[in-house]
């Protein structure tokens, strides 16, 4: 099948960037979208051009490295699918497509479709963990975890940190990402001790990184390849309010 691609090319963060057009003529419907770009890139290399930079690693939808906008939709048209798992059978022969990087102040462009998502690591470093230094763990079955709580923790923990939620949000908010980690750890008994400081630390860091606030647009849930629910953001807000309220009377935690 054929595709008519307009791809965002930008040499570095300092470069202005522009769309360039590429005709793909020898694609097959069984190819993944990224395999189609691999073939195009190999052709560009043979013809003396510069291949399109895009990120990917596992190619099975779990590492979270890949992701860009296809016609303005993060990860493209298929629900709950990273772009590495998106196959060309989702498109029409001859379709014209526009590929752009995630666009958010918190995600500066590195090159072409590659952005810097280091801000997500900083949000985790600001509290997205349970303090459990090696050697101090009690017997694993000592604390039972009710199955529904464990399942709810797992639902939230499925986040792959791809950044699609930020890219889709009109405010470029990292709320779904932040809320998912808070819900993962907050559903577990092991996560209770640091629940308040975690909410405050992570949210403050998201603000510092330049991500916007949540105004309930719901676009994040629509594009999340792992189906993280927007309701986790409501849970985050409750945790945050409780933390701030408690913080007034809790000098240790401030």
């Amino acid at each position, binding site marked *: 099948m054929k595709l008519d691609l307009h791809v965002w090319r930008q040499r570095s963060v300092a470069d202005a960037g522009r769309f360039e057009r590429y005709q793909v003529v020898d694609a097959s419907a069984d190819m993944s979208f990224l395999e189609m770009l691999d073939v195009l890139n*190999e052709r560009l290399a043979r013809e003396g051009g510069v291949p399109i930079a895009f990120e990917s690693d596992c190619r099975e939808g*779990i*590492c979270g490295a890949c992701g860009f906008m296809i016609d303005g939709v993060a990860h493209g048209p298929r629900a709950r699918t990273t772009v590495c798992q998106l196959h060309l059978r989702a498109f029409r022969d001859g379709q014209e497509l526009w590929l752009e990087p995630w666009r958010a102040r918190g995600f500066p462009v590195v090159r072409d479709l590659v952005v810097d998502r280091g801000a997500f*690591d900083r949000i985790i470093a600001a509290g997205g963990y*349970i303090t459990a230094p090696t050697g101090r763990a009690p017997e*694993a079955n000592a*604390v039972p975890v009710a199955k529904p709580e464990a399942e709810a923790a797992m639902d939230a923990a499925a986040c792959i940190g791809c950044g699609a939620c930020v890219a889709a949000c009109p405010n470029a908010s990292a709320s779904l990402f932040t809320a998912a980690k808070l819900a993962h750890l907050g559903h577990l008994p092991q996560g209770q001790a640091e629940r308040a400081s975690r909410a405050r630390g992570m949210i403050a860091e998201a603000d510092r990184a330049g991500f916007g606030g949540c105004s309930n647009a719901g676009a994040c849930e629509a594009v999340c390849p792992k189906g993280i629910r927007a309701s986790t953001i409501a849970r985050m807000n409750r945790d945050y309010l409780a933390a701030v309220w408690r913080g007034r009377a809790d000098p240790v935690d401030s």
Partner: protein
Amino acid sequence: MNAPATLDARIPPGPLETKWDTFKAEMKLVSPANRRRYSVIVVGAGLAGASAAASLAELGYPVTCFCFQDSPRRAHSIAAQGGINAAKNYQNDGDSVRRLFHDTIKGGDFRSREANVYRLAQLSAGIIDQCVAQGVPFAREYGGSLANRSFGGAQVSRTFYARGQTGQQLLLGAYQALERQVALGQCRMLARHEMLDLVVVDGAARGIVARDLATGAITGHAAHAVVLATGGYANVFRLSTNALGSNATAIWRAYKRGAAFANPCFTQIHPTCVPATGGHQAKLTLMSESLRNDGRVWVPCVPGDTRRAPEIPEAERDYFLERRYPSYGNLVPRDVASRAAKAVCDAGGGVGPGGYGVYLDLGDAIARLGRPAIDERYGNLFEMYQRITDEDPHAAPMRIYPAPHYTMGGLWVDYALMSTIPGLFVLGEANFSDHGANRLGASALMQGLADGTFIAPLTVGDYLASAKLADVEVGVTHPAFAEAMAGVARRVEALVSARGRRPAAAFHRDLGTVLWDECGMSRSAGGLRAALESVAELRAEYERDVVVPGRGSELNQSLERAGRVADFIELGELMCRDALEREESCGSHFRVEHQTPAGEAKRDDARFAHVAVWEHAGPDAPARRRVEPLAFTTVTPSERSYQ
């Protein structure tokens, strides 16, 4: 200089059960106040690397951790699906440290080191405790206790899991512990940095040279010890289940600096992967081995049967694993299951396009347990399969075929996980230590975390306390750094100024084809000799005809690939030599000349009960082969039988 022909693994004396205790009792310690004076470099941020970096930083050593991905959360451990083994015996089904040890030794076809494997089994239970404390959301029973599933090569249920995303959840636990140390200022994390050389000063590892993948800057980094946890090299076959970026460059550069490479030909072919469809394919996708718990593997009795699978009646199906291995059935180890599938397909009995596939059928389990129960266990795998193939695995069985997945071989390490270069430690899949000639399922995560969480933090300390390192802080102004950095810069420059016609990707395809055909699931002396010639030609052609677009001073993914492919070509040559010299069959290494009448691997313990250890002998000389003899004091090597 004549090194002795055999290597000493420095295994502590005494019975197997107390060796690790003996080591710990006798090791030297660095006092808490002195730890801040010893810096450690950790390369790789997967389960082994992230847990080592976090645990070393918790002890108070200043750590710098490197990964080539844009974030340590993306290391390939994340893609492990099925689970992690631990001898907890929560199921009361007769499991024990001794049994996990025994299964692992037998699963590895008696080509691993007893002392290391026993320690791994001993540490396994503590790993689960540690992960639960970190918030890893393992599957639970309704009473709130941890759930287990069974896995290939074992008759007990000792595998802990988090749906089909166990590796992801364990990695996130380790990553979060690492980020906590980053926030505390105890660990510096350099993502998007690829190690391109090891720096050795006075015979000891004292740092690395890395390239910043975003800017192209080449920088030197000094430390008192270097830990490599850079994963395996299954991408040498190009099409494998590994992530696209997984590569051998760090261990290969260390090899060329003097670290010996053990058993390079021990590469695992995983039985349950989605079959390849075409030349464009970037990688192969694994379907977790846990599916074999509830799935039955079969092909039609009549080769070339064109009916759809559900229309073929029970009596006309050949459940070949259950037929050949009645006691383990579909749960035979990976090497056995892979070879059986290949044999069936080579004989023309395969299914699907091209005939290279067999059915993995969960129909019986769905009928017995209901679709919701099966979806809860494997839902994400079904989804993945459907995305790739556009077929619904609820309606018809999946088609699977073996694919390269894991490499048991790697840099040689002693009992302390130190390579032949003092101060260079190697953890996880990057070393060779625990899995012999075949790894059992759910054991890679176990080994990565045992090495990183519990072993290296102590053995690195023991080294730092006893090594007589130069008093002067080795800075990056040292001549050894200048030399290594200049070498890396020359290599980058040579690649980007190459004016050939073929991209590195094309060479990678050619290499993969040669290795898969001649050094894959079955190997022969003639085939390996031919492969050695082909790989040598490929290497020469690469130097003549590769083209690398773009520049060295910017994000250049073609350049990254080109450097990795060049190293894979050299490693491929060593794999073939190792496979040729090992004139026996064992585990994953199947030499057609050495098989039992039933077609199983036939070991030659008299000649090959050893680790083959290869040492680089310079650019123009063939690598030297040394050995580490393997002594079995607890388990008597026998013909592995899963019948």
